[in-house]
């Protein structure tokens, strides 16, 4: 206690100082202060574990765009300060983190860059706490299609399964007609994404080309390292065409293993998730002619803006952008545009503006992206299919999906699922 006299920073001084600064703070007009105060935006994603690339590529793209926006003045004059956390892919962690970001870390907006189950967990937090929440990576259609999950403060700013399936089905049906491919087999990972996507794709191929018949199915486990039993089953069944929504490391392992069985010489293969740089560059012996759905390719849409963005990402991070990258970049653009229109960063006001908002974007099929008003989900993004070649640009002959067709069939799908 005798030390207290040594320096003047004793309790009394501190309290006096605190009082003085509080008075000083109160003296400044509140409006001016909030304009200059940074806006904290929270982001919950997966930065470790098997799917770490999801989080790292999301974060990289997001930060690249946030820096641009901040340089141009920020959101309605407020500089964006990102608070990014790692849920390690556990839904209960995602729930906890999103609560903490809003309740304790002072974030006003939440960007949910979790995968499916994490996104649903965060969705419940958004229901409870009511902050503006944007899902940027979950592709499960029910997240926005199911009216039970509708929340005015939540948007899905990324692609979704049913859109991809409609385009994929339509493309495959055309190829099937041209090459007379009637016997098909499916090989997809055994979890919700794999099952739902495959089922929808099959229904749409058959819708466009009723002669297509599924003669066999294989359901390897997600992250299963060994596809031997799947490959031998395919060889037994001898289909003319093969569909797969395997992705990432699973897809490359499947292709590597399929190669030694000479699978791709005998079977026309349709891989939803092939046109993704990480997958394309990882496979050392990429077979020619695999029909690939795009995740992100800088040559599709074939515009200078898109190519420039892809190159900029590559230059900055020394890695290729992924599907998750463009989605998170797009969300920043949406927020920036909404803040400009609303001239505010208030969550409720932004949500009002975001509903039905259309922005210019290099990722849009016709240069635009829209957050559809009726179900607050992203539409207009570039979806396409092409065939692989072993060298850059890796995929050629990209044909884009027709959004008019997508809207029609999506409406029917919703009716069938009792979502309307």
């Amino acid at each position: 206690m005798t030390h207290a006299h040594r320096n003047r920073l004793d309790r009394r001084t501190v309290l006096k100082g605190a009082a003085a600064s509080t008075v000083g703070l109160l003296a400044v007009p509140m409006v001016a202060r909030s304009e200059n105060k940074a806006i904290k935006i929270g982001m919950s994603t997966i930065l470790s574990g098997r799917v770490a690339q999801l989080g790292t590529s999301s974060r990289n793209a997001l930060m690249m765009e946030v820096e641009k926006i901040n340089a141009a003045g920020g959101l309605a004059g407020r500089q964006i300060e990102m608070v990014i956390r790692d849920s390690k892919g556990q839904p209960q962690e995602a729930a906890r983190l999103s609560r903490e970001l809003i309740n304790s870390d002072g974030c006003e907006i939440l960007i949910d860059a979790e995968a499916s189950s994490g996104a649903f967990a965060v969705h419940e937090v958004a229901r409870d706490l009511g902050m503006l929440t944007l899902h940027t990576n979950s592709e499960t259609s029910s997240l926005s299609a199911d009216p039970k999950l509708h929340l005015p403060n939540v948007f899905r700013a990324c692609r979704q399964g049913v859109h991809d399936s409609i385009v994929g089905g339509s493309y495959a049906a055309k190829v099937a007609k041209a090459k007379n491919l009637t016997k098909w087999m499916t090989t997809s990972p055994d979890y919700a994404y794999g099952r739902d996507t495959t089922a929808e794709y099959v229904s749409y191929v058959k819708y466009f080309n009723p002669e297509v018949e599924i003669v066999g199915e294989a359901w390897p486990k997600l992250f299963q390292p060994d596809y031997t039993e799947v490959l031998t089953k395919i060889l037994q069944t001898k289909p003319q065409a093969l569909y797969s929504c395997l992705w990432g490391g699973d897809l490359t392992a499947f292709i590597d293993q399929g190669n030694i069985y000479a699978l791709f010489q005998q079977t026309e293969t349709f891989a939803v998730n092939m046109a993704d740089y990480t997958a394309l560059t990882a496979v050392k012996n990429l077979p020619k002619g695999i029909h690939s759905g795009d995740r992100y390719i800088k040559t599709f849409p074939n515009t200078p803006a898109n190519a420039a963005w892809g190159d900029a990402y590559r230059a900055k991070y020394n890695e290729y952008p992924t599907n998750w990258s463009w989605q998170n970049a797009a969300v920043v653009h949406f927020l920036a545009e909404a803040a400009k229109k609303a001239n505010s960063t208030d969550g409720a006001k932004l949500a009002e503006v975001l509903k039905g908002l259309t922005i210019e974007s290099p990722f849009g099929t016709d240069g635009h992206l829209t957050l559809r008003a009726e179900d607050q989900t992203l539409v207009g993004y570039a979806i396409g299919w092409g065939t692989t070649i072993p060298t850059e640009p890796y995929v050629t002959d990209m044909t884009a999906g027709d959004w008019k067709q997508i809207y029609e069939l999506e409406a029917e799908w919703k009716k069938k699922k009792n979502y309307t």
Partner: protein
Amino acid sequence: MDFATLATCLSSPACLVTQATGGLIIGMLLFLVAAGLTLIFGVLKVVNFAHGSFYMLGAYFALTIFQLTGSYTLTILGAGMATAMVGLVFERLFISRVYGQNVLMQLLVCYGFVLIFDDAVKIVWGPEFKSMGMPATFQVPPLFIAGGVVPPFYLFVVGIAFVIGLALWLLIDRTRLGKTIRAAAYNPNMVAALGINTGYLYGFVFALGGLLAGFAGALAAPVRSLTPGMGFSVLIESFIVTVIGGMGSIAGAFVAALAIGLIRAFGSLGFPLFTDGLMYLFMVLVLIARPTGLFGKEIA
């Protein structure tokens, strides 16, 4: 359930050959990993929870060595030796401190290393999945045996794995060193009293386990997607194999691994949605019938 497909297959020689060789390849790779695991448990009474990480390291070492040398032979040997070294260091510096302790403590040490190895691999090689690519020698069309499809690479792997397994068995069963190892498993104090340095012996056994797992990793690398954490799935399966075969029995591991391989191969035809479940079910049944596994002995 799809008994129709299964029945058709069992009556068709082409299908039998294809599926059986598929099961063989699954089984043999599993055997290599499980053999090291069961050896370590049999002799050292340590459940090496980090064994899957040895496999992962073997695969990554193979990736780098192949990128540097382009020779698959060097790759296999190099990856094996490197992983053996890791196993040796791991045992001498860490596992040796928890001998005779609560099995949970041993598990904890191993688990700590699994986490460390996973992140170490992520730091050195990066978090994205990697592919080694097939060595040029094996970039050939598959063989047709009795109508069944057999890739030459898989024949090679099965052959090498079989040779390694045989060599292992000869080592343990026919050599003096093997006798010492078996003796140490039976009565370590006596072996020590006879003047044999049990420390070196234990280190050797762990190194041997690492060697086997490293070989497995290198043999699997051309057809696997390398990613930090790839050890886990192998770990679970090799544990199931060692438990079913009997902890400490290499013959048991061999039989169990083949059984699992064939169950997977034929099971995926008859039970496409429950293939994993079949494996667990098999394990449950074996354990209920013979709690110490097929060839296992009672733990002293």
